[in-house]
């Protein structure tokens, strides 16, 4: 698993990259009440806003961590946004990207580095 400074995690599954937010991020956000997912088939570029999540406190953007095509989104999350608080790194993934350039992942932190990053 890789981690971004935006508190997203990336997990490689076969030839796809699964993206979600970290437990730390979900704790900071508080109870998540709304998620707007991108559409499958969307071409995205790194750092583009592709997703919005809102907690009881505020709205946050989720950025595409890498270039590629979004091939699948986690639709059930829309009906059950609280899952992001319950299982942020498991069931509550947001979308899967077919990476255009898998080497973009090399820049991101491993778990130890991320834990250090969040102090």
């Amino acid at each position, binding site marked *: 698993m890789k981690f971004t400074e935006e508190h997203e995690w990336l997990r490689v599954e076969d030839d796809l990259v699964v993206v979600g937010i970290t437990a730390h991020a979900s704790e900071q956000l508080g109870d998540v009440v709304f998620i*707007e997912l991108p559409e499958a088939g969307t071409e995205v570029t790194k750092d583009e806003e592709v997703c919005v999540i809102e907690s009881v*406190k505020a709205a946050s953007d989720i950025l595409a961590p890498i270039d590629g095509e979004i091939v699948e989104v986690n639709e059930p999350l829309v009906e059950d*946004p609280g899952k992001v608080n319950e299982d942020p790194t498991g069931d509550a993934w947001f979308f899967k990207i077919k990476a255009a350039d898998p080497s973009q992942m090399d820049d991101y932190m491993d778990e130890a580095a991320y834990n250090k990053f969040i102090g």
Partner: protein
Amino acid sequence: MGELLRTPLFDLHVELGAKMVPFAGYEMSVQYPLGVMKEHLHTRASAGLFDVSHMGQVILRGESYEAVATAFETLVPMDVLGLGAERQRYGLFTNDAGGIDDDLMFANRGDHLFVVVNAACKDADIARMKTALEPDVSVEVIEDRALVALQGPAAETALARLNPVVAEMSFMDVATVTLNGAECWVSRSGYTGEDGYEISVPAAEADALCRALLGMDEVEAIGLGARDSLRLEGGLCLYGNDIDATTSPIEAGLIWAIQKVRRAGGDRAGGFPGASRVFGDLAEGVARKRVGLAPQGRAPMRAGTQLFAAAEGGDPIGEVTSGGFGPTLEGPVAMGYVGSAQAAVGTEVFGEVRGKRLPVMVAKMPLVPANFKR
């Protein structure tokens, strides 16, 4: 920015694991480990304890209650003189333009008037009262008392364990009650839409009183985050968001707070700042009104969201002034101002969220029915 102030309950908040944030010059608890959603639901289902010690507590004294009330009526468009002993009322400081400079609670405590004002406005409010009322009426700022609110359907059961007298109080009654050995000034009121109490307690005894309450099964500590979603569902205004120096009480839908005796034709009509605008608004109607808003989708509409009459084109007809997620409604909830033409309950308007216009229904307030003990 000066150093943040702390309430007498600061250590207790920290011990309970509160997340502390700056609010109106104080370090206040926005939430506890339970989280905003569960804190909100707990308050509606049982009882929540809130620290609102940042609010201003002021005692006004003069020759008699009547003398104080008569003087105070020059600042507020409420019937202060006619308020019964040991009774409380909601009030507004209006300005010369007929806008609202703050909202407040005032209580007839027999020989004096007890006033509670918003934290963010309290310095200005105190200055206003001193300028207008002294020397005939003394303005005593109470600095040595905490203020806590116990809110929810189980509030009576919980507080009555400390003194059964509180169960006899009706909505908006006030009384001096000994709780956990402390002399408290209690009102049966609050700002959540639930039954409950607000309790002014000597600072030195506040921690022990709160621990006694939190030791009861019904009671959980609740932060300002849930206080905001509770009052929003309850259709209650947040000063600075839903009402401000430019909104008249009539636009804000607070006409109920201006008793007939102070309106045109009443025995003590007018005589408060901005009376001509308030009376003009009453007689001629207003161009915009505060309404409850129920977004039809799942997306919350936050304060500042622009409102439109149609799904496409046209200028904004209003704006959301408070909005978020209502845990009891299990969906987004908001309030704001719309043109009078769109103010009828059931009117569909559109809120622009991230460039998209989403349908929102003008809804009856409060969005969650109040649960007061009348």
